[in-house]
């Protein structure tokens, strides 16, 4: 009899808990709806505003080799959300993607490059590197296919001509100085920014010997600010796969990668919002994985885009109110 009574009470307790939990969930959804109404409607207003009527948005794209194609996916998610992007700064692969985007190329076209990366033969620039050759000839190689890709898509353009203000970062190999390109021939600037040291010969330009900017400024938040951005969103593709590098080239790349990841930790602190696509398993030279990197960028940016919009809305709150 006591046992039956106990069961009866327990049943009531369970039903009560279920009702309370269900009511709490419904209340949570109701409250989230109010946040959603404010975000969506204010976002429409903010994204439609003329650039002069809202804080300017800078996009800082990190280096990362093939992983950097994740930036294309990030751009796609920002595009869906109607995120205004006024200025772009990039390092290494971030400079390539950023330059294509700033030139007016659509995100769809940039993503198409990711899908075709294998056919573009970019990996061959790395595949052709033989340690013995480097020792015997005592000469670094020229990244033929990378240069060809940059020339065919960005050749003939100057940074000043781009549709969006753009900057990219390289390093002077002799002095270790960070060199920020904000004007001049675009192809030269991008080639310098993506020019891996120790493998590819430094690019000689205006008495400077330029190599990949990822060594000194993996995530160019500061450069985005220098372009006049009030609010900076950073896309960071740092990280490395857990496997041990199998040869000299991969070891060198791993060192550059690790250095980049350390710089990213400091660099991204200056950003107002950071998106980090999960591309750690993709190596810098896995150009066959560019499409996968792009998808990873899209997935992560889609997951975070509402928070990014809220962050920018909060930053713009006063100006939004003024514009009403």
């Amino acid at each position, binding site marked *: 009899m006591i046992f039956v009574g106990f069961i009866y009470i327990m049943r009531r307790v369970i039903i009560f808990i279920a009702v309370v939990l269900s009511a709490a969930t419904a209340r949570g959804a109701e*409250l989230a709806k109010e946040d959603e*109404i404010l975000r969506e409607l204010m976002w429409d*207003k903010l994204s439609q505003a003329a650039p002069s009527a809202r804080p300017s948005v800078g996009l800082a794209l990190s280096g990362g080799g093939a992983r950097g194609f994740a930036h294309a996916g990030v751009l796609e998610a920002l595009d869906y959300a109607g995120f205004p992007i006024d200025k772009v700064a990039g390092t290494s692969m971030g400079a390539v993607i950023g330059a294509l985007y700033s030139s007016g190329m659509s995100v769809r076209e940039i993503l198409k490059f990711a899908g075709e990366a294998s056919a573009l033969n970019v990996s061959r620039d790395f595949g052709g590197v033989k340690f013995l050759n480097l020792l015997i000839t005592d000469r670094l190689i020229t990244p033929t296919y990378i240069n060809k890709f940059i020339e065919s898509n960005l050749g003939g353009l100057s940074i000043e001509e781009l549709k969006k203000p753009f900057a990219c970062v390289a390093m002077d190999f002799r002095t270790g100085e960070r060199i920020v390109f904000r004007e001049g021939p675009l192809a030269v600037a991008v080639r310098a920014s993506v020019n891996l040291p120790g493998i590819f010969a430094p690019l000689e330009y205006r008495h400077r010997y330029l190599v990949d900017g990822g060594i000194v400024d993996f995530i160019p938040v500061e450069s985005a600010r220098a372009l006049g951005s009030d609010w900076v969103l950073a896309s960071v593709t740092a990280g490395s796969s857990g496997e041990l590098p199998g040869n000299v080239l991969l070891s060198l790349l791993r060192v550059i990668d690790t250095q980049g990841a350390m710089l990213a930790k400091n660099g991204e602190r200056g950003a107002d919002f950071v998106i980090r696509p999960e591309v750690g398993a993709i190596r810098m030279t896995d150009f066959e994985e560019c499409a996968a990197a792009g998808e990873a960028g899209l997935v992560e940016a889609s997951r975070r885009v509402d928070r990014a919009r809220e962050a920018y809305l909060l930053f713009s*709150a*006063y100006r939004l109110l003024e514009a009403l």
Partner: protein
Amino acid sequence: MKGVLFVLILFPVQASAFLFGMISEKKAGETLSAIEASFSAGDCVAVAGLSEELFREKPSSLMRARAYSYLGRCYEAREMPDKAMIIYKLAHGLYPEDGFFSGRLAAIYLKAGFPALAAPLFEQVLRERSDDIEANTGLARAYAALGFLSKAKSYYSRAVILGDFGDLGLLKEYTAQMLRKRDWEEAELIIGYALRTAPKDAELRGFQARAAAGRGRYEKAAAYMREGLELAPGEKNMALELALLELLAGDHRAALAVVSAPGMENNALAALIRGMAFRKTGDPAAASANLTRAAGMKERPFVAAFAARLLETGGGR
């Protein structure tokens, strides 16, 4: 002895007895019928018991697959997705070409929040049957969950066409995703189809308002929202959305009127809208009081943070 063996070899025996085990096709068929009957009766315990019996006897591949399908569906019907998932995973491994198992496994993955696992399975189903509505819908949902909105659009489009635009819930879901993609044209097109099915649906008016606001037509958006509120007078969120649209359209007094109605006193978003409207109508004291109130209601983190930010930056003055 040799003669006896020779006669035994010549003795006719069903091939399946050698190939698949000891059970005869007839007996297996009877067990399967019993499984089917138990499934129809909703007796999952019996389905599981009979299936085990059937599997012990090593039946034909076809019968085994059918038993797995009953067992999986049984667990699904009893809302035991973890058990159904185990069955479908096993069956999918054994019969990778069978679209039924891929489709069911995909649906469970999607429901459990694993769209990346669901998408390739739905794709597999669609390679076999491109007109499968459930798989088209599932793939659209998986892509939407992952953020692949352009791909999602293609499959939502196929699903609603295959369903002859008759599924109102799916049309609304499709519209919501197109609003998320800021594809106003497609959203308006789908709303048009949905309105043929449900001309008096308040939620559809809300969608129309969102699409109009997305294009910057706030007065039109407010008009749609008013129509929606007439259809669903007690809908508080629609009232809040109307107030915000009035504010964005520049009609601050209309916004104030909506959020000053009874029932809005303790609402954070209503307080924020009041705060902004009072600020625009030149009443800084009321603006500040309302923004302070909204900023204190932390249950709506974004509304509270927005109000706090306005106070910090002088929006309350």
